């Protein structure tokens, strides 16, 4: 899909809105990547057992395993 055109404008309204938005974003509390990364690693590790695509699952509990007969919903 072609990227849509950018609607730029010279109006004061747009400029003020941009400044206000940036002021808001400047006030955010941020943490360092080392801290964020540690939390990401921890989350992935804690949830790895519950991720079938990661660990593979036993054939008996696989809801998509091919059954002999098909059931009409």
């Amino acid at each position, binding site marked *: 899909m*072609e990227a*849509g055109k950018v609607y730029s404008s010279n109006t004061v309204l747009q400029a003020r809105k941009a400044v206000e938005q940036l002021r*808001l974003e400047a006030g955010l509390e941020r943490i360092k990547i080392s801290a964020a*990364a540690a939390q990401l690693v921890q989350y992935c590790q804690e949830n*790895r057992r519950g991720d079938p695509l990661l660990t593979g699952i036993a054939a008996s509990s696989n809801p998509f395993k091919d059954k002999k007969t098909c059931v009409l919903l």
Partner: protein
Amino acid sequence: MCDQTFVAITFGPCDSCSQNKPLMNIYLQNEPVNYCSLCVELMACQGLAKGETVSTLRAESENLKAKLEEERAKLHDVELHQVAEKVETLGQFVIKTRRTLKGHGNKVLCMDWCRDKRRMVSSSQVIMRSAAVCVLQEHAVTMPCTWVMACAYAPSGCVIACGGLDNKCSVYPLSLDKNENLAAKKKSVAMHTNYLSACSFTNSDMQLLTSSGDGTCALWDVESGQLLQSFHGHSADVLSLDLAPSETGNTFVSGGCDKKANVWDMRSGQNIQSFETHESDINSCRLYDLRADREVAIYSKESIIFGASSVDFSLSGRLLFAGYNDYNINVWDVLKGTRVAILFGHENRVSTVRVSPDGTAFCSGSWDNTLDFNPV
């Protein structure tokens, strides 16, 4: 393919000066008004502090942007893959496409899983289709527009929403009766002034979130069709959206042609955070951390020269599935930044990739008119 967007200009009495002029649709405290361009300028200038002009505001804008980049750079003390060094490497990723669904007569543009994990809805150029994975109970609904770009299943599994070039998002109640004419029960909910690019139900069947080529996102009450909240901030078409996974959370993220990903507060309409990419950043997938307020990983290879159209995580977040315009799906190790598999299943662009709600499978839709279903 829609190459041109036509902007409709309204001409009529200005809400402020009552003169008949070309009108601009703007929002004042979330209320839509129609002002002529002169009144818009006058109103904006009234709020100006002494000495403020467009150029001083612009300069302040640039200043703030530079400061923001500085602050974000300070946080870059380590790379994610370095922190992930001690995590064990993933074994070989093997997956086989179990079933290819070929019912669509045209390019598949979008798909969504039902929470019962057994059904999916997919949309294409002409027809929106609901398919059960194990059985072929299907409904085909004809839409009055040619490109149905967005579709979504309601949490209850009883309703489907979709829309596209008709600029609307409509809901259809599902029925087990194959003979029932679904199109007759259609209900228009969302109205945009340009194409609908994405839609998603919130935690209930009652509210629908949409994004549009008109540059806005919006939250709608399904029952009444009322606009509950609108989200302004993108300066170009919004192409996608996704809700934060929490039950109580009230945020979502949207991605636009202005190269920005914006995080929004659903209740206030406020743009909380914004992530921007640069001109040179093509053909890569990037991971942004909201708490660090910056990018923390890039998934790319020199050999990948086409862009990715759709991404989704596995349940633990360790795997990232991305569908590309070179017809392939690349599976990335999110923590280590390496690619763990390439899946060659399609004969045209991959337009959508979605992991099932229980994480046991993922589905990919493509311009080759098929959907590939890949279980563990």
